[in-house]
């Protein structure tokens, strides 16, 4: 029994969730609090990964971070190895999948915070930075935590985009979702079933956690 795909999936999902959490909350805060030109465009772009077919998303990613792209070349020059077909590419794909969930939920939560709290904080002399960390963020911690859990579940299960940019290299970039496909294709029923059961249990636990977080 090879547990590598499972560990890889957890590692990729955890990294992607951590990145989306920071970037997503920042984007959500900007969208909730600032007026700027092109706000609707940013709003639409953050939602797009949710709606696009994963393979389409993966194709775009290949265009942006592939070996012949500007970004891909820069990466290769800096690190000495290509970005695509590594587990880091899988993290990028998963991050794109996870971020819309976090932005949407966090923005709604931030916009729902009673304006009186923010006004009170400001008139008590708190800087915007301190206001965010001490007042706004603690007040939205539950919905944001719930969204984070769902984002993690979603990162865990990405197939299409990950396959496009990270490939299916056993022992290197083969995540659990891809390993299940491979196992079914090659008739390895035991492996497929084991992975399916483990992934199901982990995901169900996360969804349960997310629901509990949102109730309170």
């Amino acid at each position: 029994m090879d547990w590598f795909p499972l560990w890889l999936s957890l590692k990729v999902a955890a990294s992607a969730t951590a990145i989306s959490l920071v970037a997503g909350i920042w984007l959500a805060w900007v969208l909730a609090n600032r007026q700027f030109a092109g706000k609707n465009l940013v709003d639409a772009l953050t939602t797009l990964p949710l709606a696009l077919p994963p393979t389409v998303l993966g194709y775009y990613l290949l265009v942006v971070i592939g070996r012949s792209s500007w970004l891909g070349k820069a990466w290769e020059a800096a690190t000495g190895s290509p970005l695509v077909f590594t587990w880091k590419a899988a993290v990028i794909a998963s991050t794109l999948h996870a971020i819309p969930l976090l932005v949407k939920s966090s923005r709604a939560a931030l916009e729902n915070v009673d304006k009186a709290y923010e006004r009170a904080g400001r008139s008590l002399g708190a800087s915007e930075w301190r206001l965010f960390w001490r007042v706004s963020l603690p007040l939205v911690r539950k919905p944001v935590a719930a969204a984070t859990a769902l984002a993690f579940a979603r990162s865990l299960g990405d197939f299409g985009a990950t396959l496009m940019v990270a490939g299916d290299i056993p022992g290197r970039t083969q995540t659990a979702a891809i390993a299940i496909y491979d196992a079914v294709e090659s008739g390895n029923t035991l492996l497929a079933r084991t992975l399916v059961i483990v992934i199901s249990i982990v995901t169900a636990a996360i969804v349960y956690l997310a629901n509990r977080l949102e109730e309170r």
Partner: protein
Amino acid sequence: MIKVSIVKRYPGFRLEVAFEAAPGVTVLYGPSGAGKSLTLDSIAGFVLPDSGRILLDDRILFDGAANVNLPPQKRTCGYVFQSYALFPHMTLRDNLAFAGDGLPRLERHRRTAEHLDRFKLTEVAAKYPHELSGGQKQRGSIARALIADPRILLLDEPARGLDIALRTDLHDLIRELRSSLKVPIILVTHDPEECFALGDRILIYEAGKIIHTGSPTDLLANPGSVPVARLLGGFNIYDAEVIALDPARQTSRLRMLGQEMDGPHLKGCFRGDRIALCIRPEELRVVALPGDNRVRADLRRTVDRTQWVRADFGNELVVDVPRDAWNGLKESAMWVEIPAGNLRQLNKESAT
């Protein structure tokens, strides 16, 4: 000392006010949507006026012409929110300490402890806002607003939705603050009783403008215009026609409530003018027999209070009668006497 002179336009609404407030309680009184809270929010820096100036002591908080607009953080305004706005995820002590963040640690602790003690909150300092009673939340929000030594205290309808006991406590607290704080206190309310109970000076708002100002005594003695008398409530307001004027005896004759009667000395009136007058309920008298300046009246309903009875006869004949006197009167036929000397002439329009 604060000087405010601002304009703020919204679609279908325009706030244009100018006033000064010295230490003491200045009440912004008026109906909902008149611009009272908007004025408060402009002072605190939550709302950006279109033009004008706001000066607090010798500091410019806002100057439209010079493009000065201090952020709320730098305005040194203590703001007490109607909903209290105590941070729900912090204990009361942390709520207070949050306000003293700019201070050195020991000083912050000292001030927090001092304010908790002053507002009788030391015992509940470790509790969260949802565990506090209404009165504790109220005192907590005032204590928090005062920690950083604000140069002005702004209270946005602090008594709204409170029961009578809490309201009385709040009024006592505000009176205590008035004598202990050396800064202006600006209180927004639409409750006339609160307005008269607390205000050193009252600014009456209507539709984005200040239509009258005065001390409670001045306003009760003479509201000046029909809109102000209506906004303050409690006045009987009459239309009358001037039939005769007698400047020598300082009296007049009026046709009012369908009959002729004596009126007060009227300035700037001519015979035939139609004027408005008002009188307070306690200045009218209920009597058993007809006579001069007496109007026949049928009792509609009464409201009992501890010391007096408010008798409503319709037709702007609302009379406050001492309870003892009422018990002897209520069985007999009723007439209401309107003492000519207590009638005050009102402008039909407000003086803006």
